[in-house]
Every structure is written in C-alpha cells, then in structure tokens.
C-alpha cells in the first residue's frame, strides 16, 4: 500500500491548494444552509437582512411540497427495492459463473450512468411515446431503476469477490441446502453491501431530475418542483428550506454508504 505515512510533508502551496479545492466543494453547501434562515423574500441579497426560522413552518404547511415529497420517497423506495433484487441477482450470476458475454453484462449495467442522463431520458421518452404508454408513477420508477441497478450490482459484486468461497463450500459440506446457505452464510456477508448499495440507489433516485423530466407526465417529484423554482422562482424562501432538506436527506445515506464501503475495504487491507 503506497504512502501509508509519507516521510515528506506536503509543501505549503500544495496544502493551500488542497484546502482551496475542499472549500470550493463545501462552501456553497454551507451557503444553502445559511439562506434557509434569511428574512429576505424577494431576492438572494447578502449580507442577509435578518435571520428567521419561520420558513420551516411555512414549508411544512405547503400541501404541494408534501405531495411532491411523498411521491419522491415512494418512487425512491420502489426503485431501490427493484434495484436491490435485480442488482443482487446479476452480481450473483456474474460472480459464480463464467459464461459467454459476461463482460458485456457489466458494460450494459453501467451504461445508464456512463451515458449522459439526457440520453437515457430521451430514449425512455421515445420508447414510451412509440408504445403509447401513458406517463405515470410507474414510468418514473422504471426510469430510475435502470440507473439504480448498477450501484447495487457494483457494491454486491465487490463484496462477493472479497467473500471466501470456502465458507459457502463448508456450509454445503455440512449439509445445509442452498436456501440455508444463502440465509445463514451469504446474506450476513453481503448485508452491509446491500445496505450501502441500497442507500446509494435511494439517494440517486431521490434527487434525480434529468431522467425524471422525460418520464413524468403531470407528476411532480420534489426535484421537479425545485427545478421549476430554478427557472421561474416564485417561492424563494421555501425553496431555500427545501434545498437544505434535500441535502440532509441525500448526504446522510451516501455518507453512511461510503463509510461502510471504506470500512469493508479497510478490514480487507488489515488481513
């Protein structure tokens, strides 16, 4: 493992540069938190004319926000559940067998996040249009699942590769059938990978907007609501509160997912 502890210290210039990049990444997020408390209704003026918490109450009382939030949560949960099933199945197949076209499967699964979102979006839009399927809740879910599968797949496959095959063999040798082996040996091993992949998928789906604009009809998910505020701002203070809320609800699962993955690879390194 390279550079566990470097003999040399980083130069001052490099440390300042690194700090600058880090600040560039995080200061805008802090600014969103700040603006959630502004008393300014009409503009984004700085310094803030005053601080207030009243917009949290206003946002809580908005029926349109609640329905958008409920819709986004439902879609994210169903898309995540489908991704967990489909992604795990694909990872299991790729891990345990060699078959013709195995590499192509990884490529196929990765395509929806490798190509720009607009390609997936307009492709689904043309398919839905060509087949005269009405836009609905389900067209959004189907769109989201296409790019959620890959994150579950990647996480679970990486865990399978770290898992010792001998454990499964031992379990079978000791008389457990495939279902018992899956329940008592495989599942505990991949549980945190499923959790990490699921949380990533959830956060990806919860604030996805590009594919959603092409697959939603009249439905307004939370990101679509925010996007409408970006182009035609009407409720600035409420949008600020919603923005802060979205950061919290997507940062936390991703943070824990990354921490789980980091710890998993760390224990690997210690072996």
């Amino acid at each position, binding site marked *: 493992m390279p550079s566990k502890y470097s003999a040399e210290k980083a130069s001052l210039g490099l440390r300042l*540069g690194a700090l600058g990049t880090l600040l560039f990444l995080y200061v*805008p997020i802090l600014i969103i938190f700040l603006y959630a408390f502004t008393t300014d209704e009409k503009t984004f003026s700085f310094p803030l004319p005053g601080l207030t918490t009243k917009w949290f109450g206003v946002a809580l009382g908005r029926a349109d926000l609640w329905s958008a939030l409920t819709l986004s949560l439902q879609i994210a949960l169903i898309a995540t559940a489908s991704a967990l099933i*489909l992604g795990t199945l694909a990872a299991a197949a790729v891990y345990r067998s060699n078959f013709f076209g195995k590499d192509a499967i990884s490529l196929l699964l990765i395509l929806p996040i490798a190509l720009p979102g607009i390609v997936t979006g*307009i*492709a689904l839009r043309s398919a839905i249009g060509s087949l005269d399927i009405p836009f609905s809740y389900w067209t959004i879910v189907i769109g989201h699942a296409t790019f959620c*599968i890959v994150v579950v797949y990647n996480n679970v496959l990486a865990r399978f590769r770290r898992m010792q095959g001998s454990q499964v063999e031992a379990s079978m040798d000791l008389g457990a059938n495939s279902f018992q082996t899956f329940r008592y040996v495989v599942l505990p091993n991949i549980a945190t990978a499923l959790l990490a992949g699921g949380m990533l998928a959830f956060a990806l789906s919860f604030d996805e907007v590009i594919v959603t604009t092409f697959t939603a009809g009249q439905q307004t998910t939370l990101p679509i609501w925010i996007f409408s505020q970006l182009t035609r701002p009407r409720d600035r203070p409420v949008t600020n509160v919603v923005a802060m809320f979205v950061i919290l609800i997507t940062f936390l699962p991703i943070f824990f997912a990354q921490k789980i993955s980091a710890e998993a690879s760390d224990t690997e390194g210690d072996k």
Partner: protein
Amino acid sequence: MLTRISTYFYRRPNLSLALLLGLPLLYMFVVYLGSLFALLLNSFYYLEEFTGLVVREFTLRTYVTVFSPTNLGIFGRTAGMAAAVTIADALIAFPLAYYIAKFASRRARTWLYIAVTVPLWSSYLVRVYSWKLILAKEGILSWFINLFHMNFLLDWLLSLPEIGGSSLSLSPIGMFIAFCYIWLPYMIVPIQTALERVPKSLIEASGDLGASASQTFRKVILPLAYPGVIAGSIFTFSLTLGDFIVPQSLGNSRFFIGQAVYSHQGTSGNIPLAAALTMGPVVIMIIYLLLARKTGAFDAL
C-alpha cells in the same frame, strides 16, 4: 422439500444461472436497450409541420435539420464549454487529489475520500441551486467583489461578447463556474486513484538519481497521473455535453445541446429531432472513449 429443490438446482448450474440472470437481463434488454433502440428509430422519423404529428416512416430529413447552422452552433458552443470545464476541473482537482493520494495519513485519506464522493453522488440539483444564490446580482459573490473594489473587473468580464451577460447568474461565465463545481468530484477521484498507483520506490529512485522535487513532479508524477486526468475528463466532458439543468437555470437564451433536446421534445413534441440531436453527444462520446482508451485511461477508472 427445500433440500430437494436445492439439490435439483445444484445439479443444473445452467438453469440456476438462467434464473439468476433472467430477470435483470430481461429488464436491461427490454427497458434500456429497447429504449435506446426506440431512440435510434425515432431519429429516422420526422415531424409533419402542419399537423404537428410524428410521421413514422424512414427518412433522413431530420438528420438534415441536425446539420443546420443553428444546430451546429449549439454543438460547437456545448463542446467548447465541455472542453473548458474539463481543463479547469483538472487544474482545480489536482492539488486535492495529489494531497489525498500521497500525503494524507490513512485516517485522513478515508475522510477526505468520503468528503469528495458524498457530493459526487448526491444533491446534484440543489448544488446547482446554490450557485443561483451565490452568483445573483445582489448575492454573496458580488458582495465580496465589491468589498475588494473589483467591480470594474466583473463589469469588464460581463461586457465580453459570447461569454458575458447581464449578471453572473445569467451568463456563460456563471454556467462555467457551476459546471466546474458540479463535476469536480468526478475529476478528483480518478486522478487520486491514478496517483495512488505510482509506486513510492519510483519517486525515491528519481530523488536518488539527483532529480529535484519539481523535476520528479514534472517527469515522474505528472505523466503517471495523466491516465487519471483522461479518465476524469470522460466524465466531465460527457456530463457537460448532456446537461440541460445548468444552462436552463443559469444561462441566457443561447441554447446548449441538452436544452435543445429538452425543448424540442417538450413544447413542440418533436421527438424525432430531439432523438437525432441526442445522437450528437453519443457520437462525440464514442469517439472520445475510443481515443481515451489508447491512453490507458480505463485502468484508472
């Protein structure tokens, strides 16, 4: 009973494999590849202007429209922005990636890695929104510029043709800043990965053979980081090429590819033209990927 089912499948590995792969493959083939095929198909249809209906018969006339001067201008503008964002991101990303890969303690490295990847995966839309706040005429950036009496510089920048505008939040300069911000993590991670693979012995050997620190950096570290930069550029370039949220939120009336696709499919229902325009970024990315593969960038992913 379960044991018998289990044995049955154990003896038939191909059947088990088919059962495992069937569902995910069916989904990806039918939904995703099916949609991509529908996209391709639609790009060969055309919109009858008088009726406003899509005529489903093979024609190349939609592609002829794609090569109109307006659309070529859109392609040029978008590709130019994507290139500028890519170069700027490589420069901004490098110090942090280098620090994480070569100097941070193990513990700090884990935390910094998380700090970089959390914004990579989350809150895309809200992070665009933050620049609406920052770049607004009355916003925080103007306040700072005012504080340092640099207004003349800002006014001069905004008065430039092509990239200027009425305020930062309604100009290509503002879009450029927002794009750099949004895609920055996609550049940091591959550069960091590439730098972590540079063996320490190589750097020590360079020093032992009499190279100064800056010579080692230029002759050893930079060339080995290059595949990482290329890998990162695949993301920053492709993502900028297809985005319509940033131009729609922070740009002026001059379209980018994503916006053109979005508006053609939306208001006029011209899905064939939207589909044909999408082929632009797809073709550009395929060429880009083929070129990138030659540099060994895929190993750094």
